[in-house]
């Protein structure tokens, strides 16, 4: 039960839902950046929602399967073929031992997930199978290289090929255009009047040096009305920090657990997938949002996601 990496793509990392519970030791969560796409890939591969899958960035890999496997791919759209034949995303697929799965470059967006039934079988590190690239914690301790051989867990419920061809509608789950909802944060009120205005009127541009640690937003210099001296405090994914350059950084899933820059906003959790999918050069706008609205939106999204996971599971059972 193995998959061999022929070409590694740009940045392919094993991910699950992240390792919680270690923030007090300076260890972050990591985990899939676009959680709904990751969960739906797992659902379509008949996995539990936290099974280890591969997160691809901008350019996918070429993989040779040494076992029959049910697989699924969800996230940013990219061409994919099995032995040269085009395959649909957001769909349960079957691949045979000896076949090659080839991915191209993403047409838009930044991150796509490949799930394999049973999940990739890495030894957990600190309770998780997600790679924190920056801290070098997790499976392999580094992104995938050519020649890596990845073990896949034996799946209990068989691997019969299904003839059914269906896919789910990706539109609710992939978005690179809508504004991101932004909650006020500790130091939002300290922005000068012009910057407060610019925060919501300006289209920022995603910087080239953006990654899983943070997304740099260029195009507007924001400033505080007066300087503040801050001591290090906890950060979370989605925190919008303002470093001295004046160009805000939206923290990603590999953010440092603490930081000392002013926090000028907090991206709603429900919109972290949209942050994950912005690529360098993309425009990014913010829309003001209250904590209550963000909580409601998150609950509603979770309801829809669970409903979709349930529908997929039912359909897969029916197909079998």
């Amino acid at each position, binding site marked *: 039960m193995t998959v061999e990496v022929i070409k590694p793509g740009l940045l392919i990392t094993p991910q699950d839902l992240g390792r919680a519970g270690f923030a007090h*030791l*300076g260890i972050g969560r990591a985990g899939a950046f676009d959680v709904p796409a990751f969960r739906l890939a797992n659902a379509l591969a008949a996995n539990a929602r936290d099974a280890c899958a591969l997160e691809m960035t901008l350019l996918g890999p070429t993989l040779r399967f040494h076992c029959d496997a049910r697989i699924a791919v969800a996230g940013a759209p990219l061409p994919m073929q099995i032995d040269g034949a085009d395959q649909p995303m957001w769909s349960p697929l079957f691949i045979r031992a000896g076949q090659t799965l080839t991915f191209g470059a993403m047409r838009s967006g930044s991150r796509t997930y490949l799930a394999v039934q049973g999940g990739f079988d890495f030894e957990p590190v600190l309770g998780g199978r997600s790679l924190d690239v920056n801290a070098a914690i997790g499976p392999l301790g580094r992104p995938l290289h050519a020649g890596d051989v990845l073990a896949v867990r034996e799946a209990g419920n068989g691997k019969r090929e299904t003839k059914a061809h269906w896919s789910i509608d990706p539109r609710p789950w992939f978005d690179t255009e809508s504004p991101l909802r932004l909650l006020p944060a500790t130091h939002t009120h300290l922005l000068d009047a012009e910057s407060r205005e610019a925060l919501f009127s300006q289209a920022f541009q995603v910087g080239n040096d953006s990654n899983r640690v943070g997304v740099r937003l260029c195009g507007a210099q924001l400033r505080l009305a007066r300087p503040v001296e801050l001591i290090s405090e906890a950060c*979370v994914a989605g925190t919008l920090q303002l470093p001295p350059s004046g160009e805000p950084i939206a923290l990603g899933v590999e953010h*440092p657990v603490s930081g000392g820059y002013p926090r000028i906003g907090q991206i709603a959790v429900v919109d972290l997938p949209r942050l994950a999918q912005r690529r360098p050069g993309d425009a990014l706008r913010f829309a003001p949002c209250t*904590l209550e609205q963000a*909580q409601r939106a*998150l609950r509603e999204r979770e309801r829809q996601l669970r409903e979709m996971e349930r529908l997929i599971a039912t359909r897969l059972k029916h197909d079998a």
Partner: protein
Amino acid sequence: MSGFIAEPLSEDALLLRFGDSIDPAINARVHAAAARLRAANLPNVSDIAPAYASLLIRFDPLTWVDASEKNPHACLLAAVEPLLRDPGAAPVSAAESRIVEIPVCYGGEFGPDLDEAARRAQLDAREFIVRHTAADYSVAMLGFAPGFPYLLGLDPILHVPRRPVPRTRVPAGSVAIGGAQTGIYPRELPGGWQIIGRTPSILFDAAREPPCVLAPGDRVRFRAIDGDEFAVLAKT
């Protein structure tokens, strides 16, 4: 024990702020609060992480809602406040904390900035080392990188400013000073602090349980060792 401001950081995070300065008394209250919240074993709370003057609580916002759909932060805070209100329980005193000894080989190739730091402190290198090993430190928080301890207790004479241009690579085990703070680099990292020595202790190892030698609230003493002892300890 009470006397904090609660601030929602995000839909799934609450920050309790006990002050706004680097102050051992405030930090001790943070650790005492962290200990009580850990002991209470609140359901669906994943992280309780102390910083200098604040405490992060990460929780599942989908479960911390009551029947009236009151907001999750209010629900959590209602559970947290009684735990921190009781005036009877004193904060964890220093005597109850663990003391961890960290051996350090000062100066030379392991501490390239020792002479410069000593010059700024108007001490000779030997006196600088004596003062650095004499103090009783406490781990205010871990951050920056996995297992990186921010230590309180640095002798004010030893406060030296950061390097104007940070190094792109500071070796693992480097013991360094940045302004009023002293810390230890658990692995090779970029950094702007003045490097005065190196420890052979492995501060962080993900395969070890626990992964970090130091935990928040621990007390730390540095012990000066020579190059020979460093070599011996590095092998064990």
